[in-house]
């Protein structure tokens, strides 16, 4: 803290800590908020207070919602026999946006990464095994990133799931994206697409 560190400086520092914002952008936003108290600052304060007070993690899947279990877990029109495992809430939103999946989710809270010191105990693996154990689930979909960390997490989960249940385990396909032209794709994507080619 500096000698003249007042509420404005604290606000700027808090904003600058957000992704995508540096000190200059943070200062600009702080000044904009203060010059538009009624239109911007007060609604923002209200929204932040409401969010902090009411939004919590779903005790079943780990999603964010005002109620727990969350709306997705309570939705009786969705299948309870399929669980899609995603690393974070952003990934859940991406799958949900497609509208193509009508099952349950489980949010791991990251992927295994020796470099970042994220081990199995740091992820929501124990609660996943508890959910899958009773035999009420037919299929577990591993919707994890096509990165080394994402795929090693997928293999680790496969091992753990196979230890406790004989549930069907699937993963998302890797390969050519829709609209992708082969000569613009990177070598890794083409290699993976060739390895997981399908019979027509």
């Amino acid at each position, binding site marked *: 803290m500096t000698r003249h560190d007042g509420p404005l400086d604290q606000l700027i520092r808090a904003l600058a800590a957000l992704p995508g914002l540096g000190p200059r952008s943070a200062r600009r936003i702080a000044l904009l908020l203060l010059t538009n108290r009624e239109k911007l600052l007060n609604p923002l304060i209200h929204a932040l207070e409401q969010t902090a007070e009411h939004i919590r993690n779903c005790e079943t899947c780990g999603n964010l919602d005002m109620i727990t279990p969350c709306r997705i877990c309570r939705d009786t029109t969705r299948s309870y026999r399929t669980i899609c495992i995603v690393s974070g809430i952003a990934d859940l939103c991406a799958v949900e946006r497609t509208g193509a999946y009508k099952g349950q989710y489980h949010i791991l809270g990251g992927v295994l990464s020796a470099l970042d010191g994220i081990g199995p105990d740091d992820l929501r693996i124990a609660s996943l095994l508890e959910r899958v154990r009773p035999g009420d689930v037919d299929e577990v979909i591993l919707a994890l990133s096509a*990165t*080394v960390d994402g795929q090693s997490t997928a293999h680790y989960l*496969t091992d753990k799931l196979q230890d406790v249940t004989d549930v069907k385990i699937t993963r998302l396909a890797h390969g050519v994206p829709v609209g992708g032209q082969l000569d613009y794709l*990177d070598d*890794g*994507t083409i*290699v993976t697409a060739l390895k*997981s080619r399908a019979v027509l």
Partner: protein
Amino acid sequence: MSWLSHNTHMEEWRDQGIVLAVRPHAENGAVLSLLTEEHGRHAGYVHGGQSSKMRGILEPGNLVSVAWGARIADNLGAFTMIEQERHVTAGLMGDPLKLGVLLAACSLCDAALPEREGHAGLFYGLLALLESMDNELWGVVYVMWELALLRELGFGLELSKCAGGGDSERLAWVSPKSGQAVSEEAGAPYKGKLLPLPNFLKSQKGEVTDQEILKGVELTGYFLKHRVFIQDSRGIPEDRLRFEERFAKYVDRQEREDLEESIKQDVKG
């Protein structure tokens, strides 16, 4: 003006390297660690290292051509040019054991090798290991590569003759203290304390099975843990431990399936 030309002189080099690790830094950058051909394990900053374009290239195991530069040689510096030479990782992602080998080898290099010390032999060894992944003997190649890593780090094993003066044609064990092979007869009284020597490392070369490869992985794992990483508070890298565990599980499952199959055959017979 000579002081100016001296101060503006940049340390620069070009080389090829295998990606060992990528650590995200700030919002878009990353610190990349490579095992290079001429400059050993070398780190550098990559501007935009977390971008979607770079993420696919900067996966452990990929071979890249790089240009590195820094104002002073001791600085972290930055990789100013990165071009992909060979994409190894994508082909291994679907196979848990091969992906495990890739991660184990890269994490061992990243954790055990001193920085900026040339290890061209290890670079070519790692390249050969990654290229051997389509070969059915990839497990043997991995054990041989770990033995080479131990040797390079000054903890080489002597597996050609018996430490106890026994018959070097009948080697069966390795002493955990000296790292030397021990013959079957000389080692018999200390059987419980010695490490088994896999068939493919014996002078008379036996059959290569998954069980023998597991013996090799456990043998090198013991010396990595008790020699190389004994002073390291983080211990042996998590990826190496996980690979050994997964391989042991795989061998165990194979044995169980073989046993069930033979029981079925007996019942049919």
